[in-house]
């Protein structure tokens, strides 16, 4: 019984069924085990790994410089920027907005630097549903090549105080 101490010799060899079950499970685990590095190398949805530490002032400076250089419009008081394809782009999270609004070209690659000025925020790109964390003090670089044109929304998916649900930004792909 699971309630009593087992008999003197309880380390019996595994039976045929047990060995079969463990082998099938193990083979299955090994396949998943191998599949992931393979997909990491050949797939296109890897989590980014490039990270730098950054102070709020430094990041703010980089954002301001980009806005000054590439601003093409404004919506609801938030500048719209159209950065040069292939360039470094800065996206700033703070309570409770994404700044600025980005405009990308389809098929071009951008290095999107993501950081937060205050609390932890979550970047959710909808409706494609890609999700990343924005932490204060960290500059997280996502290499992005939009393959669909249209209007996308940036929604915060990490609780950041009472205005959390109002934290909606925009991204255009032209």
């Amino acid at each position, binding site marked *: *019984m*699971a*309630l009593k*101490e*087992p008999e*003197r010799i*309880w*380390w*019996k060899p*595994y*039976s045929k069924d*047990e060995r079969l*079950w*463990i082998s099938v*499970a*193990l083979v299955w*685990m090994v396949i*998943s*085990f191998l599949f*992931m590095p393979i*997909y*990491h190398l050949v797939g296109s*949805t*890897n*989590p980014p*790994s490039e*990270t730098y530490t950054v102070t709020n002032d430094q990041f703010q400076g980089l954002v301001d410089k980009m806005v000054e250089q590439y601003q093409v419009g404004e*919506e*609801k*008081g938030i500048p719209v920027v159209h950065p040069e394809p292939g360039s470094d782009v800065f996206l700033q999270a703070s309570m409770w907005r994404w700044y600025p609004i980005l405009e990308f070209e389809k098929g071009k690659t951008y290095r999107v630097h993501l950081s937060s000025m205050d*609390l*932890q925020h*979550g970047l*959710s790109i*909808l*409706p494609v*549903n*890609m*999700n*990343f*964390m924005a*932490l204060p*003090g*960290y500059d*997280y670089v996502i290499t992005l090549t939009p393959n669909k044109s249209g209007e996308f*929304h940036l*929604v*915060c*998916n*990490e*609780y*950041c*105080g*009472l205005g*959390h*649900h*109002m*934290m*909606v930004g*925009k991204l255009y792909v032209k």
Partner: protein
Amino acid sequence: MSETRICSLSGLKIEKNAETLIMWNVVAGVALLAAGGLFGLLMALTRWPSVHLLDIQWYYRLLTLHGVDALLAWIIFFEIGLVYFCSSVLLGTRAAAPKVAWVAFAMMLGGGVLINVIVLLGGSDVLFTSYVPLKASPFYYLGIIIFAVGSLIAFCLFFANIVVAKREGAFQRTLPLGAYGMAAACIIAILTFGHGAGIMIPTLLWSAGLIPNVDPGAYRLVFWALGHASQQINVCAMVAVWYMTAAFTLGAKPVNEKLSRTAFVLYILFINVASEHHLLTDPILSNWHKIVNTSYVMHLAVLASMMHAFCVPASWEVALRKKGYTAGLFEWLKKAPWGNPAFSAIAISLVLFGFLGGITGVIFGTEQFAIVRHNTFAITGHFHTTVVAGTTLAFMGFTYLILPYIFRRKLILPGLAVIQPYLYGIGVTIFAMAMMAAGSFGVPRRHWDITFSGAPFSFSFDPSVDMFLSLMGVGSLLAVVGGGIYVVISLGSVFYGEKVEG
């Protein structure tokens, strides 16, 4: 010498101190489950779009408490009850240090009450994760620390009890499997609460203004070594409950002790690193680290679950076939005691935990899927199938079992008890699946209003999301009715049930 009795139902030798400790820890747990469940109902009614019940402040406030009461407090209190059950009652020996155990109980209760009061008074709407630099009142962190230290003391008492039991000859060579599983749970618990101290103490000092800051990246890493690993305590305790309940209700015994025990050892060795899958879309870990740690070592813990998935039903089959249900492949399954809520609860728990919780866990924990599931409602769906449909349901079944053995009371409303595990299981399945469906469209978790009222730009989810969230509301209502029946039966039976001789 302490007072003991022989239980006429189970033949177990039960000591008075152990009995009272189990009773009060379970009662405190159920009371906190009742509070957590009520808050859960209010959460569901807020995320049900056409109801949207709570205002913004109360939503986040009660979301914080729902996590603390239902996930942390209820489950840990019940597990402490299991610690005393497995290390004293199962071995027929006394509780080694009842006074220390009461100190632990008082700390857990005091910490739990402190958190509830502080959050209800406002100012600590930080949710269960309490990610820095979002700041709560220092008393919030203090409450968590007091609760955690109390439970750490109680988990350590398992080993003190085992030493006493061994000295007094309660066992010769090894522990019974149920106690062995709880031993694994206790080892993981001690490791986990070490991490808890490692992060909650600096956070308390920061909140009190004594140190300037806590690094948010480091906080997340260490917090999840507490937050996720503590769910592995639950997995071990749940599996131990599966084995013990099957033994009591069917007379089942493990088909191969070696296999079951190896699986528990694999949990101890490998399951803790799985906690890092929370960081797959975080800046701080390198790619290499993400691949090796989260995707691979995790599979060895999954292998352990696959072993239990074989051993537990196999022990049922063997026990039932011995009773003569040998016709065809499945007569044993048909003739299993489906009307006994202790058995049906663990059977439903096993199926839901394995098929819904386990599989979604492995999928969402992989590197590429994390990007499309991280922080969406799908994750909420996943852990409700593991922790609620798995652990909570198994503990409910165990309560029905120990009500006559430990509390010496017959169940009140036995008819309702029969349907309770089904009702609860179906309710949780509906709402968790609906959450997963909504999450796959990107609906975020920890979110008060997905219509984004007041935002500069508005985004509309796929229209089917409305249907899924309504379905979630309906499932939640079913689950709350099932959970309410459990609370009424367990607390009602403890205090007003007909006395059982023994």
